[in-house]
């Protein structure tokens, strides 16, 4: 990080980049306001904040391209306690979000191929294969990913990230901060929370050493407060889905959730979600549904099928089916109340043990049941994601109880979140078709 590097960064990102992105957003805004812009008869037009989302994400990756010139860079797992890194001025990159972007852009299969050619089995998580493939080949739709100075791995989403980040640590030869969160089979105990807290404190020390500076208490408090605000707004955004018709679908949420994961703690994230919430409340006030002719409402469990998000969105909308909620996007909203900016490290120990993936299968069923009621869902789609065992194991029992005890139609859909080779189009469409018929009848 030299003076020249800093200058390069300012030129490319702060000046040129920002200007370009601002113009692009204005252009898109204008386009969206043209009459005849949106022709789809089944889906309402995209939210007016969408160009802003594009700007945020694009800028994030633009920053990333030049980040090594100006910042210390950390690669972080999606459930990682990022606040202290953001407060220390790290640029944070989320390989999982990058992976999802590759899935959406249909390049994940190729990237997985690179990892597989290096000997990584097809039986490991497709996010990991996408990421490792990108690291080994240098290919990314983002142009260039910054090299990490530090890795942060939190096992609250799965143990797979543990092995994945050990592979990255070996490849990049950088320090790895591990936040090992004990699994909550029924409830979190005092010694679980104490253990996580100690690891967080140690993590802060390692991050400070790598950054070459100390963590300011005030900065951490402010970052945590912004995180809390953003998460609370996200919660309210999701809750608008309770309205009939729902102003938003889970497919939209999958796309709009990027900032809450990869830019949490930033002020613009709070502004963005505030604007998004306003727009959704406006839709609610005018009974505007994301699906124009909403007849049936569904809940989605597990990760999205990234390479089919748009197609599924259209497919469902054509049948008047609105995916009004998902346990995946809800996972963020649930955390809001536990975040305490006054005691950021202590509350983080509780918050980061709490995500749905760190809690038992019975708890997930309770969450699904509650959401079915709150969102008035007519059915549930359980994506049996080959790559995600913590999310998928338990679904067979959950599905049975939903249909047998709750009399809620529930479909187990076999696929993979990022590997299209594990997805059989014919089979999936057949199953979905039959499921829709069950909903009708």
């Amino acid at each position: 990080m030299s003076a020249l590097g800093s200058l390069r960064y300012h030129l490319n990102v702060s000046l040129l980049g920002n200007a370009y992105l601002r113009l692009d957003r204005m252009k898109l805004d204008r386009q969206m306001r043209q009459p005849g812009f949106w022709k789809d008869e089944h889906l309402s037009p995209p939210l007016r904040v969408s160009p802003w989302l594009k700007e945020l994400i694009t800028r994030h990756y633009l920053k990333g391209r030049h980040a090594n010139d100006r910042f210390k860079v950390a690669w972080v797992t999606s459930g990682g306690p990022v606040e202290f890194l953001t407060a220390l001025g790290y640029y944070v990159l989320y390989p999982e979000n990058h992976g999802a972007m590759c899935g959406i852009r249909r390049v994940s299969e190729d990237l997985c191929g690179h990892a597989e050619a290096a000997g990584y089995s097809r039986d490991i998580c497709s996010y990991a294969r996408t990421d490792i493939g990108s690291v080994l080949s240098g290919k990314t739709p983002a142009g260039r990913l910054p090299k990490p100075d530090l890795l942060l791995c939190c096992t609250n989403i799965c143990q797979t990230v543990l092995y994945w980040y050990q592979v990255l640590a070996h490849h990049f030869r950088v320090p790895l901060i591990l936040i090992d969160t004990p699994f909550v089979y029924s409830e979190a105990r005092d010694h679980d929370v104490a253990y996580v807290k100690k690891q967080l404190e140690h993590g802060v020390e390692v991050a400070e050493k790598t950054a070459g500076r100390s963590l300011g208490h005030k900065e951490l408090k402010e970052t945590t407060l912004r995180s809390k605000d953003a998460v609370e707004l996200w919660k309210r955004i999701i809750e608008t889905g309770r309205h009939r018709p729902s102003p938003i679908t889970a497919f939209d949420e999958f796309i709009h959730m990027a900032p809450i994961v990869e830019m949490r703690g930033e002020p613009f994230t709070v502004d963005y979600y505030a604007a998004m919430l306003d727009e959704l409340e406006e839709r609610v006030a005018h009974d505007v549904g994301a699906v124009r002719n909403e007849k049936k409402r569904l809940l989605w469990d597990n990760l999205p099928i990234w390479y089919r998000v748009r197609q599924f969105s259209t497919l469902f909308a054509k049948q008047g089916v609105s995916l009004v909620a998902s346990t995946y996007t809800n996972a963020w909203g649930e955390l809001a109340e536990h975040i305490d900016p006054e005691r950021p490290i202590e509350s983080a120990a509780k918050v980061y043990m709490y995500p749905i993936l760190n809690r038992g299968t019975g708890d997930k069923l309770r969450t699904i049941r509650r959401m079915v009621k709150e969102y008035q869902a007519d059915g549930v789609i359980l994506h049996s994601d080959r790559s995600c065992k913590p999310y998928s194991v338990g679904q067979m029992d959950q599905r049975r109880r939903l249909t047998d005890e709750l009399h809620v139609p529930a479909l187990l859909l076999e696929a993979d979140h990022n590997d299209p080779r594990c997805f059989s189009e014919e089979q999936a469409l057949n199953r979905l078709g039959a499921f829709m018929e069950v909903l009708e009848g």
Partner: protein
Amino acid sequence: MTESAGAALRIPGRREVLRSHKEKGGFVAAVFPIHYPRALLRAFGILPMEVWGPAGVNTTPGDAHLQAYTCNIIRNGLSFLLSGGLDEVDLILVPHGCDSLQGLGSVLLDFIKPRQQVLTLYLPRGDANDAGRAIGFFADEFRSLYKSLSAITGRKPSEPELLSFIAQEEAADQQRSVLFQQRLRLPLTDREFYRVLRSREFLPAEEFVRLAQETLQQKVETSHSGVPIVLSGIVPEPMEVLDAIWRAGGIVVGDDLLCSGRRLYPPGKDEDPFPRMAENILLAPPDSTRGSSVQERIEHLQKLCEDTSARGVLFYNVKFCEPELFYLPQIRKSLSGRGIRSVEMETDLSEHLPDQMMTRIEAFLEIFQ
């Protein structure tokens, strides 16, 4: 190859051991993989009997709860439970070891709810030497387990009692080390050797010590010949894999298996039994399920190959086992750079070794012959 004396060793079967223990008024716990404090269970009069598979179980009962892309360690184990295989045990312990074991524990607790009480145990990941955080947590986890076991059995073993049970387990683990050290001079086939080693999974520690000593008495002057290899992976099931290696002219001289070599628990130092038991486990050889670094695993395997003069490493993995699969490419590349050849194979814990597997083993050993 030296004449085998394995047939002469008498190893009691699991049912026999179970019944004998229960007749004496003890409890029996079925323990799923991987790491757990044996001494703690024994102190409560509970005999732990481990469930690794078993191989060849019909997975239909388990398939109703666990998807096909989960490993057979949990699918066979669950099917075994659901078909009555664990009917005689008093309680079930499912330690946390990976996402699949996590799921198994959770599904048992929340949905299947077997007659026996199900207990879980979290395994801390990361460096045990790192300011003792992991040891401190694990000790607390054992104290919590102590309370549960106390409620179940009505007993309250004292600290000196716990320490004596710990000493007993440490002695048994020490015997395992000695068996490995003397491997080449024991007139046993690989399968016979592993039958002895693996009896640690269900025999009381003191009986294992006796068996180990009996085995060691059979030591001969001449060493085995045969292509020396290291076996790495989870568990050598079906045990036929060891026959296949033996028949093809190989001999397993080094063990990086989760069920044996990676559980060569060293004796601890702490005088408080709870952190002592934590030390035993957390200071064991590098293990992917404990989140050891890739470098640690590479160094351990290299040293193992050097110490045993092994010609190559056979990575014998259970299909879908992510903890193993992630590490393989970097480990294999590093070993190859040191002139150590390796081969990967996958098992689904079926009853018999498929022909394809035999071919791979033979082809690998042919490289050195």
